[in-house]
């Protein structure tokens, strides 16, 4: 099975403290460390496990600048066979639809049976997978937490439904799935693994190579534009406790007690 996994380089939530920049329109990106979007990492692990079982290839693709190459290498160190970097100045400032348009260009260039995306990334919009499926006119399942390969033409796909119920669907191939965390336990990638794939050639494709009209993507094609970015004002009822951890805990216990939550 030929599987394409769409991945994104994002600021790592575990290793950063996020602050707004002085302009107030984005994060302060100095001193940030980046890694592959967590959901995408689960998607790549799932793809590798499928290929281990039924054979085929895993290709990881990302849209970004040259720095995005590092996440492709990390996923290749995990076991993805190929990496493709989609990069062009014209791609900068793309909205969700723009990203889906660029990815569609790559999907049409290759021959993929299964296309995976993470359920969401740092922008928390969760829109690229669905849009990509629609643009390609392929079946789509979101928030997938289980995949069983049935045959060359169909797979079974599980989704967790509100209230913890599980749903299973049969989906025709090729299709697009957005992957939920927890579908597997992604393997560890050490420095050695990354160094091993450090010399592997990663093709870079631009708008022309993908056959994309530059005006349909990037800033030029974006129909959604971020106009503000801020930490919400504290509303009534929300209060930040202050002090050392011990003091905060003491205050919290006091408050819970006073409301009758603790005997």
């Amino acid at each position, binding site marked *: 099975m030929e599987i394409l996994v769409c991945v994104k380089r994002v600021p*790592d939530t*575990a*290793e*950063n*403290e996020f602050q707004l920049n002085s302009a107030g329109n984005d994060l302060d990106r100095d*001193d940030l*460390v980046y*890694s592959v979007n967590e959901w995408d990492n689960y998607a790549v692990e799932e793809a590798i496990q499928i290929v281990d079982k039924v054979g085929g290839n895993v290709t990881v693709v990302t849209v970004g600048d040259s720095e995005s190459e590092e996440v492709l290498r990390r996923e290749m160190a*995990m*076991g993805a066979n190929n990496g493709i970097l989609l990069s062009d100045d014209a791609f900068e400032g793309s909205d969700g639809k723009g990203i889906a348009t660029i990815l569609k260009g790559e999907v049409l260039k290759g021959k993929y049976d299964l296309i995976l995306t993470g359920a969401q990334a740092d922008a928390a919009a969760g829109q690229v997978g669905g849009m990509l499926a629609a643009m390609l006119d392929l079946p789509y399942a979101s928030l997938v937490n289980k995949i069983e390969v049935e045959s060359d033409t169909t797979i079974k796909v599980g989704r967790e439904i509100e209230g913890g119920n599980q749903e299973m669907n049969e989906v025709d191939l090729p299709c697009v799935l957005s992957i939920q965390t927890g579908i597997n*336990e*992604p*393997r*560890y*990638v*050490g*420095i*050695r*693994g990354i*160094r*091993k794939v450090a010399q592997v050639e990663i093709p870079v494709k631009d708008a022309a190579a993908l056959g994309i009209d530059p005006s349909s993507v990037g800033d030029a094609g974006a129909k959604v534009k971020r106009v503000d970015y801020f930490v919400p004002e504290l509303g009534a009822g929300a209060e930040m406790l202050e002090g*050392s*951890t011990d003091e905060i805990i003491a205050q919290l216990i006091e408050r819970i007690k006073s409301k009758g939550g603790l005997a």
Partner: protein
Amino acid sequence: MSPLIGPANFNFFGFFPAAILSVLIPVVGVALFTYIMARRIAPLVRAAPDNRFDNIPERLKNLFFVWLAQIRQPRYMVAGVLHIVIFAGFLVLSIRSTSLVIIGISSDFVLPGFDGVIGDIYNFFKDYAATGVLIACIIAAVRRGVVRPARYDVPAKYGKDHTAEAVFVLGVISTLMISESLFEATELAAEMQHTGHAEFIAPLSLVWIFRGMVSGFAQSTLQGLHIVMYYIHDLTFFFFLCFLPMGKHFHVITSIFNVFFMRVKKGNIKPVVHGVSEDELDNLESLGVKKLEDFTWKHMLDFYSCADCGRCSDQCPANAVGRPLSPRFITIKARDLIFRNYPIKSGAIYKSKMLVEDIYSEDEIWSCTTCGACEQECPLGIEYIDKMVDLRRGMVDEGMVPQTLQKPLKALEKRGNPYGIMEKKRADWSTDKEFAAECSVKVLEKGETADTLFFVDSITSFDDNIKTIAQNTAKILTRAGVDFGILGKAEKDSGNEVLRFGEEMLFQDLKSQNTEAILESEVKQIVTADPHAYNALKNDYKDLPPVKHVSQVITEKIKSGALALKAAQEPESVYVYHDPCYLGRHNGVYEDPREALDAIKNLNRVELEKSRDRSFCCGGGGLMLFYEPEEETRMGVLRVQMAAEAGATVIVTACPFCLVNIQDAIKVAGKEGEMRAIDFTELIVQHMA
């Protein structure tokens, strides 16, 4: 001159020369033994290299104390003394057994030098040796068969009980002792009948008793017994020789080699592959131990040498809390696999599978805290830590790392600490308002210099609760007049656990960053309050200035008068010092912290039963704090209970991880209010005059 005919001249049924048997048994025995040994050596030849021909004086010392003097045996008194008797008996009787084989061919054979007084003296001792061995075997058999100490038990998941083999071998040894003694006793009895006077032999020895028992037998009976006993001994001897390499009694042969080649340095970790430099690691096809033959030949020799005594597992804290790890079975399972993959009978060699899947489980290998209690105990010098690390290296290389460990490892890669906190906050503990008002700490950057580097390490830099150890250490160093500074954001995690959890390349990265920063600071010595950092800098790094734990500096300064302590603030409290594994067992620092505590007048200090080199791990440090093991209770809880039994109200630790684990354990054990944990540095600061 004996009236009996010896085996060399005896004819069975009057015509068949017994000497033929005397030749045949040793020839067949030795040939079989040679074949078996060749098969046993086959996996060692295919194993990874190991450099064990260094430090010869140290190795000879081990050979003398650990092997010949059996210095580790009395740590378990009853079994230890029994073993010493049997071992010493074997050494003494090996001479007799050798000459007996030749006596079967030449009746009057005497070993060169043994024909005079020396021979008489030897005979006197060897008679007692045989007697001692027999008595020891009987007691040992009763212990194994009836008393059944718990450490010999084989949990169902590890296979069948081993008692039968143990008792069988004790029977074989007893047979050797009895037949040898009877062989001699019959001859002496016949002689006594012939000459009318009894030759002096060791009173109350087996031979002495047997001579008394058979002295009334007819000459022909004595003759028959004499010959029968000889061949029982001869057959049993060569059977035993060939049986030894089949199981746990292989140690009778391998122990001398295993002890000679045992670990001589402490606290360090073996290189990934002996003879492959750190720069060449990238070229290796695969890293760590994945298959049987990836173990070094010494580690395979360890598997062969295990006597199944169970001392390692009896001391193992992971085993004590019900984690899925018992060091004894790490060895036994590997030995069984060698026996399966290199069968004696067929001469085939079967391909080995990934060990972690085949005979070990992932959790089993992650369960080890590398505390070293097992290695400290093993009378045969079997090692475990390097094997655990090698297996983990293999798992890391295959991506088999629990999710709970992946996060801190990634944070270490990106930020140089397992918490993922920004580098620039590493020295924030030193700028806390309250602390900074009292004590100022230099950051060795932009040309700032100092004599001494205080290496803080991650937990002490970042953990809200633990950073007081950093502050207290700084206060003590300042008071003692030490010119010191810290590296600030240039310091990275020492990587003690990164190395021990098998992430070799990440450790190499951390090591080279720290080494560069330390050398650049041009300090003359390094001090740390974290035994894990102390261990890594001292034993895993190279070419650094000398490293000391803060307890060593404190004791030095108390002795020199630079640091004065006042009398105990709480004379009613009962203090107990808990030895951190990486300070004590791995680095031999036992006395400095105790001396410093005892320098506080009227401080009431007791000792734990398990202390110094038998200290019980608190639960492990570094990455072990992130690992979520399967276990029935926490190591720390057991340790707190031990302290309670010792009558302590305050547990003094000298390691940030010990403090975290013991503080938590006091809560879990429900002993809050009765007991508390305090770091050594805190106690010293409280008592600075």
